[in-house]
């Protein structure tokens, strides 16, 4: 009787583990493909209605539609303020090797810079710097913080 019960417990454990594994697998797949942050926490503003940063999916440097919308507003703002120069700071989350993240941050900042250039901002007004994972906006170690840290931030330099 006892061994029978144990058998059942063991079986249900196996099932639970199996289901657990499936759930994790699914979650991982979804977060990897499109986990760019879309909220407003941590976001600052260059001017009224002009957010200072755009967010990226894990390991990605392609601009999302939300990112291009933000950068279009930044371009309009920079056109209206032609003496203003900016530096684009590229960042990565903490779940990657330091050196690769430095390169990734540079690639993200450059993607944002290129969008501004293609929207009529002179290249000599925009500098790029990568901080890799060195300067998180949110210091927590969770999925939300990591999504807020995968970013390119436009900072005024004058």
């Amino acid at each position, binding site marked *: 009787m006892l061994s029978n019960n144990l058998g059942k417990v063991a079986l249900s454990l196996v099932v639970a583990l199996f289901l657990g594994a499936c759930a994790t697998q699914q979650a991982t797949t979804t977060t990897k493909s499109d986990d760019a942050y879309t909220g407003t926490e941590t976001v600052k503003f260059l001017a009224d209605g002009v957010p200072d940063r755009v967010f990226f999916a894990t390991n990605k440097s392609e601009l999302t539609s939300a990112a291009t919308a933000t950068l279009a507003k930044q371009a309009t703002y920079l056109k209206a303020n032609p003496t203003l120069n900016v530096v684009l700071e590229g960042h990565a989350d903490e779940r990657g090797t*330091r050196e690769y993240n430095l*390169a990734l941050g540079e690639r993200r900042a450059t993607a944002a810079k290129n969008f501004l250039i293609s929207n009529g901002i002179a290249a000599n007004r925009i500098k790029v710097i990568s901080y890799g994972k060195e300067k998180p906006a949110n*210091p927590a170690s969770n999925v939300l913080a990591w999504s807020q840290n995968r970013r390119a931030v436009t900072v005024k330099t004058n």
Partner: protein
Amino acid sequence: MKYKIFTIFALFFILTVKSFALVSVDITRGNLDPLPTAISDFYLDSKLNDNIKKLQLESKIPELIKNNLSRSGLFFALEKKSFIQKPELAHNKPRFEDWAFIKAQVLVTGKISLEKENRLRVEFKLWDVVSANELSALAFYTAPDNWRRVSHMISDKIYERLTGEKGYFDTRIIYVAESGPKVDRKKRLAIMDQDGFGVKYLTLGNELVLTPRFNPTSQHVTYMSYFKNLPRVYLLNLETGIQDLVGDFPGMTFAPRFSPDGKKIIMSFAQEGNSDIYTMDIKTRIVEKITDHPSIDTSPSYSPDGSYIAFNSDRSGFQQIYTMKSDGSNVKRISFGEGLYGTPVWSPRGDLIAFTKLYRNKFYIGVMRSDGSGERLLTENYYQEAPSWAPNGRVLIFYRETASDSGGRGGGAKLWSIDLTGYNERLIPTPTDASDPSWSGLLSGK
């Protein structure tokens, strides 16, 4: 900046006994049966003056040797209070039955005497208790305050005699000392002995510094600094303290490492969203572009003969490890397991490449052969990366981070070492949080 440890001191082989040892240590497998070793207090010559006697080197030197050997995981140091024979007698002629009685298989003895004013002669002998033989004996001449260095050198000689391979105790670690909150982390270059003793800070923390690496042939270090907010690779001479910008690049340079002959620095240069690998000859300042690919190419590391380079690239779509000839030809992907691979570092023995792997939200330090076969994961954790080899290619040092809570508190970084076998994982104590370790070559050379 001058370091005492570069003081030249003579090393005399007073005896080289090539007797056959019954005891030996196999370091190729996980050692779950460390060698029982008795390390006797040294015999202190009674003619030494009180200032030297006060240092208590007769117990401090054997204690340091004991710590080194124990931490290697290959030796089990027996309790001193079980020793029967007095240090002086043991050093001159051990009564092997006494040492066998406490289950010692090897015995270390020593004698400290005065060579001349403020200069010591430290002699040690290594004995095979099983075959009742002397295995080796050496004397070192040194200033008294250099006793730690001598203890490390003796430890290396014991390790070498019993394992058949060079030791790694007379070495140093350069690393990044971290302090302050995560959103405003202060980072300083720091250097210490391999056992964590004698930490010295080389930068003040005014600018972010990352990834220091030793030149395997000299007292130079290359690292990355955000000096004046321009992220660039620098060269630092540890003896003079002089720092030099490496090359004249119009953008970020990062991920520097020396070539095995110490003459070149290999690194990444990022421009227009693309990172490629470059080398710069330190003397001629000639820069060469090694990779030319729109993907990220970074974390380059030479093979010990300088003919190949392992590096990290996402040209397949994700971070993987590649090798190529040192001129950039013959690019070949070598990592094919599940997950992402980064930070390849070629073993000083040439046979293996150590790496970091990210798989299902866990980080691993592992090794694979240079053709990518035989992948072996040594340790799994929440976050760890950046392995660096001990000069004998048997031990890796790396850093490990712990997660912070939702308020961003509690996270930290520490240095750890692990044997190539995957056993014997050890925390390397540091006064602050620490990351990006790089292991020096043997300070005493060959």
